[in-house]
């Protein structure tokens, strides 16, 4: 197989330019989808028969929770690629993803907590879903802190990659926690095999928000990746033609 395309893709100057071109192609569709999803979720979707309008928190909570796990999976795969094939760009993707993932995890926990108060009568319970999601936030914080604490970039990349790969064991625990343990948290809504337990009127804004959040991550990742490449390539000669011209 011819791998030259992969080497070209992984080359920092090419990736820097490509990320710059791709960012708006992620960003603007994300903006439009999130606005559409908000209108659908806040205005068009009917109130829930049990939870009333409080259920609308779902439209920011579920996409945030999904992104917290999706970004971690992306980060861990990138870290593994960087560790196995020694592709620096993969480590840069992992480094650029961690803060965004941490923010989405924080958002999932905060909105879940606010939703929990009127529905469960408490802001927080130490059940498996909430605790494993909190551990995910600590994992993100650990990754960011680990990178910041090691001065040598290659060592920092390798150490963070090992932690990221080990931490991936938490993702199935988060997902299946509602089945494995007794919990206040509700079960899966849209990923259930067979058919989702949510009506179409409520489902489409949720799906639109989830796609919007994914594209949003793409846009932010592209911008953060460009910054990461610039910091890593500080002594490379291609920067002169790229930045000065």
């Amino acid at each position, binding site marked *: 197989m011819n791998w030259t395309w992969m080497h070209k893709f992984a080359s920092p100057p090419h990736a820097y330019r490509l990320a710059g071109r791709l960012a708006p192609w992620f960003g603007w569709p994300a903006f439009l989808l999130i606005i559409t999803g908000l209108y659908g979720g806040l205005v068009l979707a009917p109130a829930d028969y049990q939870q*009333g309008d409080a259920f609308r928190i779902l439209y920011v909570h579920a996409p945030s929770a999904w992104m917290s796990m999706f970004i971690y999976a992306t980060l861990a795969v990138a870290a593994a690629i960087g560790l196995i094939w020694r592709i620096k760009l993969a480590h840069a993707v992992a480094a650029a993803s961690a803060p965004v993932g941490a923010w989405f995890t924080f958002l999932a926990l905060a909105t879940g907590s606010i939703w929990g108060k009127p529905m469960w009568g408490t802001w927080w319970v130490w059940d498996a879903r909430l605790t494993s999601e909190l551990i995910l936030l600590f994992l993100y914080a650990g990754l960011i802190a680990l990178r910041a604490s090691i001065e040598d970039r290659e060592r920092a990349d390798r150490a963070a990659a090992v932690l990221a790969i080990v931490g991936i064991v938490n993702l199935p625990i988060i997902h299946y926690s509602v089945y494995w343990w007794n919990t206040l948290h509700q079960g899966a809504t849209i990923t259930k095999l067979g058919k989702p337990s949510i009506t179409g009127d409520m489902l489409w804004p949720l799906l639109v928000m989830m796609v919007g959040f994914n594209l949003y991550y793409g846009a932010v990742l592209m911008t*953060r990746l460009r910054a990461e490449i610039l*910091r890593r390539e500080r*002594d490379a000669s291609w920067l002169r033609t790229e930045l000065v011209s």
Partner: protein
Amino acid sequence: MNLTGFLAMGKYGAFVWPCFLLAGAVLVWNVIAAKRLHAEARRQALRRLEAGRSPT
């Protein structure tokens, strides 16, 4: 539905709106932070180039 009823969100307005405002703030902040990060990295790279320390 009138505006007052919409803002009240049944009796859950005090829970629904903070979630959406927080989400909006986090999304906007992440875009600003990413753009700032890139601008700062670009500034630093240019400074190094101008100082003539860069080409290898």
